[in-house]
């Protein structure tokens, strides 16, 4: 699908808590067919402080309504400015960008692992898997129960397991210590979250010969392979997070 640069209309801005919000966007033209794992480069505004675009995952897509959602964590001036957008505001995007998660083979047991904002691309991936006949398990990690986001949405896809650092919901601790990792057998794990979490999940998968794909985050200037600013150190040399990723098989990463 060709990349495009387009003005989209904000038709919803749902604040999930103090840190996370979801923008629902609608286009004048038919939205492209997204692949799970892809992202958009979002133009913030013309403020000198937020000069570059912000790379944001595609969180959910509704082809029937011709809309899609992006889930954003307020992390700085740019994302804070985006959090203030309201219905009818126009947002300029370059999208869809990046590669995608690879689809599993039939009969594979699948687990999605997400932590914090890393859950963003996993909802669309989950829906995609479900539409293709898979029922994945989903393991989500949060700091505490007040910070749990999009729980009900994930329930519509498969079995959801939760960890919180303070034990206020689900198992206490990090996703990497959840009992589901020792009690169930998986053929494939898709993961997105903090680096330390992804590295631990990668190590778990490597030791058990489980196929593992992670979606990486990086600072980017362009988002489409021109600037070479967002490199990842891989067994094939420096590759761009934006066009060679954001999804990588962990065997290709020097982790």
């Amino acid at each position, binding site marked *: 699908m060709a990349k495009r640069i387009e003005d989209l209309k904000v038709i919803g801005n749902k604040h999930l808590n103090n840190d996370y919000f979801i923008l629902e966007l609608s286009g004048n033209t038919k939205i492209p067919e997204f692949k799970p794992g892809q992202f958009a480069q979002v133009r913030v505004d013309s403020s000198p402080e*937020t*000069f570059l*675009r912000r790379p944001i995952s595609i969180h959910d897509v509704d082809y029937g309504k011709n809309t899609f959602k992006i889930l954003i964590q307020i992390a700085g001036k740019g994302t804070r400015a985006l959090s203030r957008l309201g219905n009818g505001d126009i947002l300029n995007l370059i999208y869809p960008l990046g590669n995608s998660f690879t689809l599993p083979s039939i009969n594979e047991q699948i687990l999605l692992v997400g932590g914090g904002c890393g859950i963003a691309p996993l909802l669309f991936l989950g829906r995609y898997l479900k539409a293709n006949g898979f029922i994945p398990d989903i393991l989500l990690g949060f700091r505490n129960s007040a910070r749990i986001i999009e729980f009900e949405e994930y329930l519509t896809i498969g079995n959801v397991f939760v960890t919180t650092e303070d034990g206020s919901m689900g198992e206490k601790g990090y996703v990497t210590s959840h009992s589901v990792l020792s009690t169930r057998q998986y053929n494939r794990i898709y993961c997105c979250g903090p680096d330390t979490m992804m590295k631990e999940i990668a190590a778990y998968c490597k030791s058990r010969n489980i196929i593992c794909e992670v979606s990486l985050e990086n600072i980017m200037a*362009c988002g489409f392979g*021109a600037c070479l*600013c967002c490199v990842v150190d891989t067994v094939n040399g*420096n590759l761009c997070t934006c066009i060679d990723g954001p999804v990588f098989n962990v065997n290709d990463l020097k982790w």
Partner: protein
Amino acid sequence: MNLGFSIGDLKFKNPVLTASGTFGYGSEFDDFLDVSRLGGIVLKGTTLEPREGNLNPRMAETPSGMLNAVGLQNKGIEYFEKSIYPRLLHYETIIIVNINGSYIEDYIALAERVNKLKKISAIELNISCPNVKKGGMAFGTNLKSAREVTREVRSVYSKKLIVKLSPNVTNIVDFAKVAEEEGADSVSLINTLLGMSVDVLNMRPALSTITGGLSGPAIKPVALRMVWQVANAIKIPVIGMGGIMSAFDALEFLLAGASAVQIGTASFIDPQASVKILEGIENYLVKKGFSDLKEIVGYINRAK
């Protein structure tokens, strides 16, 4: 409307080119614009051997700009000749290869090889990259080595030679004059300004290399001043760049004496920026009643 300009007998259809390292090899932009509409494209910096570039993080956003420390990541001239060059042949625009080396011998070897590539009309001699440990800016901040590398490349390269100047010098005019004296057909300026950013929350430099090259509108007034100084001091055409985001930005450079402009960082934020700037320049000329771009080049230096 004549939007063309020339470097010697090399005719460009319009004055909007893309800056090296911001436009890949053209194809990255095929989804967004018709590359053949541009006056020319300057390709990502090429070295003799493949280079991995610098470690991540390589980029930091700064007010009205960005710092980069990519470090000339590229697959080397052999890969370029075999795999990239054939994909450039269909573009109906002037294609310029930006060459870089650690030693003079590297530049000479590269120039000899690029000289054999029919579709490549010119070399941009990069003696101003601030992000490599050896070579790069070291050549462009010392008059003697700038002279030597320009002379040596000139002696082996028969097509148009553009020397890309570093702003990280006391007097850029001296370097422009040296380039002209040694037979360069044009100079392009400015490369990025050496800068730095500190990540206060994590208490470390924002870039893996600590320092990097600053680009974007933050550097435009500095670039414009340098282009104006150089255009008034030499006879060969000057290609201006540095923070051009809009047609009016580009027109500032043209009015100050640049024969053409390169669009760099703007293409990251709006991949269609180069074509929009071209359209804006044409509209401006029409509105102002000019029929030839040349009428406005250096206009501020003539108007009394």
